[in-house]
């Protein structure tokens, strides 16, 4: 609880400040690991299994986060060029290429030094995770482990715990988790401690609840955070610190901040005229500028599918039952990662609901060259959304890493036209209301 005497300046904005500090600390810790010539488990944001790895005290590295940081810091092109020089195609995932170059540079990264991998753990939420891990397997001869998570088979048909088909999938996931634990014992030389796992899961429970609440708080008008820019800071912490006391404390304080903002009608820096949903992956090579093109015209992002899938489905707020940790971890992983995949493949129905719940004026679809997982269905999803709801939408293509396919001028033209449409729609709606 925030004491009533707390000044707004003590609380408003602290989430971003503390998130930034945690993130710098995160990279500093990784650098220390690398300097000691120790290794880290390489994991991904959609199903990191951080609960298991933290229970073995393994340092973890998120190559996706490492890669996107090179774009935000405007050096990704150097990494992409180096990977392309050894044969990687311009048409494949930029994250993969940035990481390949980073490995070739011995872990050199703008935020510090990244340790080499001791093992790689990944789900099938993105198929490129698998191809990526195969690269490390070849480079370092390390064990790589796929936790295969069966997703939704058909839009609208969702199995749930207790149902026969769900339990088949859950047993498969549980069996793999038990095999992963054995592999972690081999890699670390440590015996599995189920109580430590329980602690990590309890922390993850609190973080998940806070994440769910955080997203819900942005239904406020004005919205209390920008889902694209602030949301990306929160995502980094949610992934890197999942299952840890620091991560839990951060998110509980963040929710306090956002509750406070909502209660006092404090919004973002944008004069909020249009509430938008973002579908896809951010344009990291011009991250701030991309957002500004919207905020300059009164547009703010109140939610995004990115906050769902890139949190590995934490938006579900799934609560582990720590009295039966492995079974519950399997169930939670299945439900959460499946949800993350749904946010990418079947996001159409979710966006439709989100648009209503968040009083949205428009939807921005942003497919990118690098990521077919997220981008392949977006044009058709948009078509279906417009046909069914008439919701204004914008379809702009660029990339999350490769500035060669990011044209700010072209993006701005399209975005300007979108806002003209929104303004005219608002004007017409007011006129009809007056009549």
């Amino acid at each position, binding site marked *: 609880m925030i004491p009533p005497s707390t000044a707004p300046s003590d609380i408003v904005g602290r989430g971003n400040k503390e998130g930034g500090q945690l993130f710098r600390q995160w990279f500093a810790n990784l650098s220390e690991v690398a300097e000691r010539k120790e290794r880290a488990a390489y994991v991904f944001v959609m199903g990191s299994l951080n609960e298991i790895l933290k229970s073995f005290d393994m340092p973890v590295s998120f190559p996706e986060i490492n890669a996107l940081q090179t774009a935000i810091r405007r050096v990704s092109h150097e990494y992409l060029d180096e990977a392309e020089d*050894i044969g990687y*195609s311009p048409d494949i995932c930029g994250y993969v290429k940035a990481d390949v170059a980073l490995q070739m540079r011995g872990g050199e990264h703008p935020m510090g030094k990244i340790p080499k991998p001791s093992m790689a753990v990944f789900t099938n939420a993105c*198929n490129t995770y698998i191809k990526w891990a195969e690269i490390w397997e070849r480079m370092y001869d390390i064990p790589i482990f796929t936790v295969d998570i069966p997703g939704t088979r058909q839009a609208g048909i969702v199995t749930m715990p207790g149902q026969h088909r769900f339990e088949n999938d859950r047993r498969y996931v549980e069996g793999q988790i038990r095999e992963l634990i054995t592999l972690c014992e081999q890699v670390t030389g440590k015996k599995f401690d189920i109580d430590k796992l329980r602690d990590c899961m309890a922390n993850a429970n609190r973080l998940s609840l806070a994440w769910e609440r955080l997203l819900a708080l942005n239904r406020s008008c004005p919205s209390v955070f920008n889902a694209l820019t602030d949301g990306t800071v929160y995502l980094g912490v949610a992934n890197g610190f999942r299952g840890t006391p620091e991560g839990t404390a951060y998110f509980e304080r963040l929710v306090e901040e956002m509750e406070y903002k909502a209660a006092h009608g404090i919004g973002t820096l944008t004069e909020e005229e249009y509430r938008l949903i973002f579908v896809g992956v951010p344009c990291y090579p011009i991250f701030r500028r991309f957002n500004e093109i919207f905020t300059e015209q009164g547009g703010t992002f109140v939610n995004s599918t990115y906050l769902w899938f890139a949190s590995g489905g934490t938006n579900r707020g799934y609560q582990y039952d720590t009295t039966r940790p492995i079974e519950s971890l399997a169930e939670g992983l299945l439900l959460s990662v499946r949800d993350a995949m749904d946010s990418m493949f079947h996001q159409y129905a979710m966006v439709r609901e989100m648009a209503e719940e968040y009083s949205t004026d428009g939807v921005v679809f942003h497919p990118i060259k690098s990521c077919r997982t997220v981008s*392949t269905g977006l044009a058709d999803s948009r078509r279906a959304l417009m046909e069914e709801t008439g919701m204004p939408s914008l379809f702009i293509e660029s990339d999350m890493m490769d500035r060669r396919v990011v044209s700010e001028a072209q993006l701005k033209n399209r975005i300007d036209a979108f806002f003209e449409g929104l303004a005219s729609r608002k004007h017409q709606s007011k006129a009809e209301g007056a009549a």
Partner: protein
Amino acid sequence: MPRVFDEWKALPLDEVLGLCRDTLEEADFGPVTRWREAGGKIVGHFQVYFPHEIVHAAGLLPLKVRGAPVEPTHADSRFGSYLCSILKTSLELVLSDTIELDMFVTHPICDAARNLAAVWGRNFQYPCQILYLPQNANSKHTAQYLRDEYDRLLEEVEEIAGRKVTPEDLSRSVALYNRDRALMRELYEIKRETPWLVSAEDAYSLVGIGGMIPVEEHIELMESVLPQLRARTAKAEDRIRVVFEGAFCEQPPLDLIRMVGRSCYVVDDDFMIGLRYIIEDIPAGDDPLMDLAEAYLERSSYSPVQHDNRKPKERMLVERIGGARAEAVVLAAAKMCEPGLEEQVAYVQELEKRGTPYFVNEFEENMTSFSSLELQVETFVENLLFT
């Protein structure tokens, strides 16, 4: 069961092969239309592997949806840029009513293909699904999981067929497909041992036609053609023996295969690998679904989109080269194909290490100009022959 591909029966060998090529290349899917017109139902399945036996046992036609050399006039608006062609042309075939399906199944082979079930489902009322073939082939729980997943598929298929499928039905289908795969293996043996007896594009067409006609008819065709191929009197020529690698999903145009075949003997390849993915007969057990699952995991080939710790792809390629006694490799990848392009790097590194000559290229199923590529291939071949 209606017959859909009888035209070849009275024809001499060369014309049979020509008919197979035309049927595949013309992309009007005549046999599929005839099946439909006779009241048959069709389950379309995207690349790469699909357990045809499950659909066949229910009396339906499993149709390999593998794109076509057509313009995606209708489908273009359903997709953005930076995507491979096969996604678009596959959807085009149904949006343009060239083929009509009762169910569509895709697989988690790549990030783009997995999206197809959702895209397809927003455009058609029939079931559009993902068959979650496992990406962890190394867990002791995988075979049971896959058996359950096949059981789920079977239930869906029974719903469409309007009848139950018995284990005996499945066993009969498994036996038929065993026979068909054995015949395809025989064709590949001819390619390896006497490549001058069958051209690359003819072998390709003979396999490919199997993706669109009932297995019984494919067996008849192969049983008729293979002895005739063996009886040919063509003589060996001084051509280099190559493996063509990289056509596991999107297929190169027939003209490209023909062009490579003019300069080289294509002694092994991964064309339509899904139809040949199971490399041994599936034993007849009490639980045919488990037999199918076990075969997928333990008696199977490889491709860049099936992960198995026991099958590093570059090592599998080296085995393929060795098994075919190939002197060089044509390393192809479909444009915008993430797994194919990524694998190409690993293949190149391995071939460099071994000193195996290779030729790298990208293709698209509806490319039409080959002159520059042909010049490059000829130069590559001449380098090998004369240096």
